[in-house]
């Protein structure tokens, strides 16, 4: 029925709201069928003349460029459909429509259009905008990890244990795509069990215990035992070998250390040793002697094992004081007989004691989960369990729990601690596992402030607000202060002060990392594949040589690893010049089957995008964004600024070698005047993630800025586009610069319409190669960075482009950044009904000189962040998913005959 075709999500929801609007308009006085609603009347009177004047050449009178025509609405519903007007709003605001060569509406006319779209077509009430609806959010794995750290006091490496979360709208905290599967729930249950097992002590009193890593035993014997620390995370990262002392079977050795014992009593000493040999046999034998203060406790011979652990324990009566522990290794086999390596490893020495009951202590973490020792009677125990578990569940669920829940948890605990051999603590721990597996922990469930209200919109309640704030700013659960304020109903009142407090807390770095990591794709720097050799060769104009070397390498590799037949089959079609020169020699050598035949890997390139450099790049961007956030600087500095953060390695890659930046530590550096760096766009991170593995991609760079800074993404490309390399292939006699190749690439008018928007922007960054390094030449030719934006502004250098983006396009940037930040804050994509809220935040940014605080407080105080649709609204609405299901099923095309 609709006369225009525009792809947007949520069509079902739009229709529903339009229907609502129409009903509302009808009630407001327009007569029944046939008569115009006020929105339509206003359209005819105020808007249509503007459209006729400026748009009708292409979008009326039989013209419908881009599938848009303004004079073919068959019904009022079609006229008022938000999809169309959302696009009109975006395009006119960004200056994309009317095109730059055509006359444009005056400011007043533009405002008339915008007002009508927002308040009539969208039906937004500026005083009470629709807050939209956020699908209940599951904690993503980043949030899960930090929530567990705050709740349980331990670090659980969810990035190893859980599969990656899906993303939507560019972020991984979007409720709609955070699904749950049986496998994931199973993992949650296993994780809950592991976490509680690690964090919660299962008994009230334990024998004091210490573990001394083997590495503390040294030849000098000077190490003092600092006592046992358990800060280490678990879930796969520990490197146990670092903590061991390794001794060769064939070298005599004596290692020792001293430890302080405070109380006299019986101690149990446990030695954890391991023999680590080669997979193949070795005849070596050795004697190990262990002594405490000269008294021998162990004398034992060992032979070969490929990998075997041993444990020995002894009880000893000790007086208080210093104990010196010594291991001696005596070789029993002459070194001449050695075939393979064979080592004795001291994994650790454990000391338990005094074993006498009066010396037992409350275990670590006991006070975190238990307020006192468990009482004796069953009623007292049950009451205590209920109290403990009620409090724990309230913290975990981030809101108070009903008595019934506490009762059920207490019953769960009782079921365990009343079975023989189980402690009270074990029962409570079992119930805690249930809490961590509950949907109330795993999902962020929100309540309206007034559950009985009939209004379509309500504030979220204070507990939900506490969670919204803490997951937005900290990516973790609310702390005690937020919950306490929410409990008193005073959080909303003190919101501004709380946001300031939260921003000052180091946990706010999570917002910086998680928001900018995804908005600017900084996270991708870690995994992106860049071939340094190819990139540098292009800068130096030595691609041909490099390609030749590579072809050789591949040919030889293919020979070595494939069947000869397969390799020949593949190589016979290889037309890369230069292969032939290396080919026959390679083949001949290959047939002889010699090891290492002519296997010549080209020398390492002078700069590699290695781990350290990637880390430095990511840190630069994170520290820089953090400085904008924490120093409350204008957000336009994200585009253009006079400082950045560097370490020696990154400074070198940037060619900033005269600033005296040395060492691995990242620090703030004022950029020399005239430096092309400054602002995230010329950070290595952004330049790298918008490149291909072997060269820059002006298209990706242009698109990156259009999507993430100007908010005017171009439509996706049509199928069958040739690659840039394919274009180059057509010109055989010389190598094209990137700019020339792009020109040929977009010569079709259809391509040019979008590429005109992207390429000029992307090409301005051509002085930066695919690793973010400055270069003066590409393929031995000068680089031309001059260009023009679709909106008409011209620039010669990247510095000028950045200035234009930060000044003339400041408004577009504010709006784009606001949309991204709001998406991250809400956990849902923004839609047409958010336009007013976004405009209000942009207005605050304009008034507040673009300071970050204006953005942050604008988001926090916005309707979508503060409010929710009530169930009254939701129940009345058709379920959008249901509406969609019909569409999806209908869209299944009949199969071919």
């Amino acid at each position, binding site marked *: 029925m609709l006369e225009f075709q525009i*792809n947007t*999500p949520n069509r079902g929801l739009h229709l529903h709201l339009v229907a609502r609007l129409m009903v509302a308009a009808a009630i407001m006085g327009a007569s029944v069928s046939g008569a115009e609603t006020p929105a339509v009347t206003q359209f005819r009177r105020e808007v249509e003349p503007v459209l006729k004047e400026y748009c009708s050449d292409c979008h009326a009178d039989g013209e419908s460029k881009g599938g848009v025509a303004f004079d073919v609405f068959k019904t009022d519903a079609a006229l008022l459909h938000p999809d169309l007007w959302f696009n009109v709003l975006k395009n006119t605001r960004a200056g994309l429509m009317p095109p730059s060569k055509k006359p444009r509406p005056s400011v007043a006319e533009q405002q008339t259009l915008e007002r009508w779209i927002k308040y009539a077509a969208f039906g937004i009430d500026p005083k009470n905008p629709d807050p939209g609806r956020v*699908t*209940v959010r599951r904690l993503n794995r980043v949030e899960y990890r930090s929530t567990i750290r705050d709740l349980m006091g331990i670090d659980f490496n969810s990035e*190893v244990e859980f599969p*990656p979360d*899906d*993303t*939507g*709208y*560019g972020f*991984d905290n979007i*409720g*709609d*795509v955070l699904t*749950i*599967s*049986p*496998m994931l*729930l*199973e993992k949650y*249950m*296993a994780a809950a069990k*592991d976490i509680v097992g*690690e964090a919660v002590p*299962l008994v009230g009193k334990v024998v004091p215990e210490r573990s001394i890593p083997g590495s503390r035993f040294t030849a000098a014997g000077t190490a003092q035992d600092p006592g046992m620390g358990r800060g280490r995370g678990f879930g796969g990262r520990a490197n146990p070998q670092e903590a061991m002392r390794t001794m060769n079977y064939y070298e005599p050795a004596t290692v020792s250390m001293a430890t302080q014992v405070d109380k006299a009593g019986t101690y149990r000493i446990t030695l954890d040793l391991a023999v*680590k040999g080669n997979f193949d046999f070795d005849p070596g034998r050795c004697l190990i002697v262990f002594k405490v203060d000269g008294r021998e406790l162990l004398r034992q011979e060992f032979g070969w094992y490929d*990998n075997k652990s041993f444990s020995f324990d002894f009880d000893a009566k000790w007086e208080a004081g210093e104990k010196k522990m010594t291991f001696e290794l005596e070789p029993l086999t002459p070194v001449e007989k050695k075939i393979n390596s064979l080592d004795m490893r001291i994994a650790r020495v454990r000391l338990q004691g005094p074993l006498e009951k009066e010396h037992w202590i409350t275990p670590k973490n006991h006070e975190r989960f238990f307020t006192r020792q468990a009482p004796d009677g069953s009623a007292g125990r049950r009451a205590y369990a209920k109290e403990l578990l009620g409090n724990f569940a309230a913290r975990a669920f981030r809101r108070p729990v009903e008595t019934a829940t506490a009762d*059920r948890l207490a019953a*769960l605990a009782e079921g365990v601690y009343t079975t023989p051999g189980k402690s009270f603590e074990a029962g409570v721990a079992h119930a805690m*596992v249930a809490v961590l597996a509950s*949907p*109330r922990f*795993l*999902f962020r469930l929100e309540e309206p402030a007034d559950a009985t209200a009939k209004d379509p919109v309500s504030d979220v309640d204070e507990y939900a607000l506490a969670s919204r704030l803490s997951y937005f700013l900290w990516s973790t659960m609310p702390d005690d202060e937020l919950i306490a304020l929410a409990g008193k109903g005073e959080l909303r009142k003190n919101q501004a002060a709380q946001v300031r407090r939260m921003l000052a807390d180091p946990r706010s770095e999570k917002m910086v990392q998680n928001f900018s*990591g*995804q908005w600017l*794709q*900084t996270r*991708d720097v870690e995994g992106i*594949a860049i*071939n340094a*050799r190819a990139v540098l060769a292009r800068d130096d104009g030595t691609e041909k040589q490099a390609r030749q070397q590579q072809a050789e390498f591949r040919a030889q590799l293919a020979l070595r*690893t494939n*069947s000869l037949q397969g390799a020949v089959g*593949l190589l016979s*079609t*290889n037309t890369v010049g230069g292969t032939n020169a290396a080919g026959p020699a390679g083949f001949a050598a290959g047939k002889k089957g010699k090891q290492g035949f002519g296997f010549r890997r080209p020398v390492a390139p002078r700069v590699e995008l290695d781990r350290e450099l990637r880390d430095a790049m990511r840190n630069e961007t994170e520290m820089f964004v953090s400085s904008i956030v924490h120093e409350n600087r204008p957000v336009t500095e994200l585009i253009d600024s006079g400082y950045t953060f560097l370490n020696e390695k990154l400074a070198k890659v940037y060619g900033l070698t005269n600033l005296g930046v040395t060492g691995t530590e990242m620090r703030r550096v004022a950029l020399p005047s005239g430096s092309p760096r400054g602002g995230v766009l010329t950070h290595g991170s952004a330049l790298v993630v918008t490149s291909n593995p072997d060269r820059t991609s002006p298209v990706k760079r242009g698109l990156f800025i259009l999507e993430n800074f100007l908010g005017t993404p171009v439509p996706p490309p049509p199928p*069958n586009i*040739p*690659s840039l*390399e*394919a274009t180059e292939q057509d010109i055989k006699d010389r190598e094209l610069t990137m700019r020339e190749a792009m020109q040929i690439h977009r010569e079709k008018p259809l391509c040019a319409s979008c590429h005109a928007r992207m390429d000029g922007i992307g090409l301005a960054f051509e002085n930066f190669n695919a690793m973010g390094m400055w270069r003066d030449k590409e393929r031995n030719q000068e680089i031309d960075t001059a260009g023009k934006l679709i909106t008409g502004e011209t620039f010669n250098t990247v510095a000028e482009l950045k200035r234009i983006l930060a000044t003339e396009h400041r408004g577009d940037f504010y709006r784009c950044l606001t949309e991204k930040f709001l998406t991250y804050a809400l956990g*849902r994509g923004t839609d047409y009904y958010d336009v007013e809220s976004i405009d209000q935040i942009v207005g605050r940014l304009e008034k507040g000189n673009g300071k970050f605080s204006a953005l942050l407080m604008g988001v926090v105080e916005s309707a979508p962040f503060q409010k929710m649709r009530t169930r009254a609204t939701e*129940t009345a609405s058709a379920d959008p*998913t249901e509406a969609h299901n019909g569409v*999806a099923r209908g869209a299944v095309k*009949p*199969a*071919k005959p």
Partner: protein
Amino acid sequence: MNTNPLLNRNLAAERMASLSRRRFLRGLGACMALPAFESFSPFNLSAAPAALPGVAGKAAPVRMAFIYVPNGTIPSAWWPGGDAGKDFVMPPTLEPLAKVRHEMQVISGLDDINADPGPDGAGDHARAGGTFLTGVRIKKTAGSDIYAGVSIDQVVASQIGHLTRFASLELTCDSVRKAGNCDSGYSCSYEYNLAWRSPTQPMSPEPNPRLVFERLFGTGSPGERVQNLKRRQQEQQSILDFVMEDANAVQRKLNGRDRQKLDQYLTSIREIEQRIEKAERMPVSNPAMEAPSGIPSNFEEHIALMSDMMLLAFQTDSTRIATMLFAGEGSNRTFTEIGLSEGHHNLTHHRNVQDSVDKVKQIDFWYMKQLAKFLEKMEQTKDVDGQSLLHNSMIVYGSGNADGNRHTHTNLPILLAGSGGGAFKGGRYVKTKPVPLTNLFLSMADRLGAKGIERHGDSTGRLEIIA
């Protein structure tokens, strides 16, 4: 003395870390030398009585797997020349399969038209991935309301999944995910998930071989694994009761998509309950080997380990249905191991430039070698009926893109390996008139004993030419 299972597990992890992959594979080799099941704790064949359909020969079950390779393949190197039948010449890309040729069919003429742009425009990669096993048009959305269809593996699993401890197994060798959007306005879910339990619930695949192993067989050393698994399941039961009640209470207050989320949670709980109940009936196998130690940094090893996990799951009859992504659709992985610095996806848009075409062929060939290694192992592994595990399986290998250069979705590169326990005739090049890929899936589903599936996605019938 140390009763904390987690600490034990950490110690076990330390031990594991020191084990080389070679050692792991040696263990696997030892298992494979024996007929399936016999090397493990006694297997109760009553789980698969001979009378049941989907059970081949002397009570050996039929297994089904789908292995996905992204970005299509170079058609000229994929398709055998000449006529259909037994005497086809092995094309270059398929050469690594020479040793298992007798157990495979190259099938031409299969289409996935719902991956065509249709009204949805760009996004052929997301569509190729999202439609491959579902056969339906997927909803174009960046985030909210993802909507595909139920995938064939899950359709079958819902019928025969109760016969094994795991209804199905979802694996991936692609552990890196992009930040930001995926393909032209499609959610990343479509590219990273093959299996869909419902149109809105993708089954996220597991990338970590250690976690696959522990999920199948329990944690800890071989000696303590079965015990650990049992203990964990017993403890789970009371917790499941609690969270089920919690979820029901919460769900009553929700509607729309929120309710859907809780539905996902509740179905997941029910599934775990069923598994516990099953574990009481069906003994757990205990492979005589250490668990692998995690995701290897080397891609080839990663694929090898994940393939081993699939083989083990089939061999021990822990499941009969599996899906595995070699890489997510649209993958732009570089193959430095064979000297290619360009990304796979970039390369596939070669516009017939010979150098790029050749490089893609090398990638196709490389992936095929990984498949061949897996199939050869399947062939060497004896099943309970004395046949090879491969013989008793149906393994589809292929892509939802045919020609990656032009994003075509007709005449897809599809291989069917294994004979489904003798139901299919291997060693052939099969040409069919253009039919939906889903027709093949229906014929496979029948062999597993699924009943009453009239249609799947865009299917128009069965593909009995393979029998």
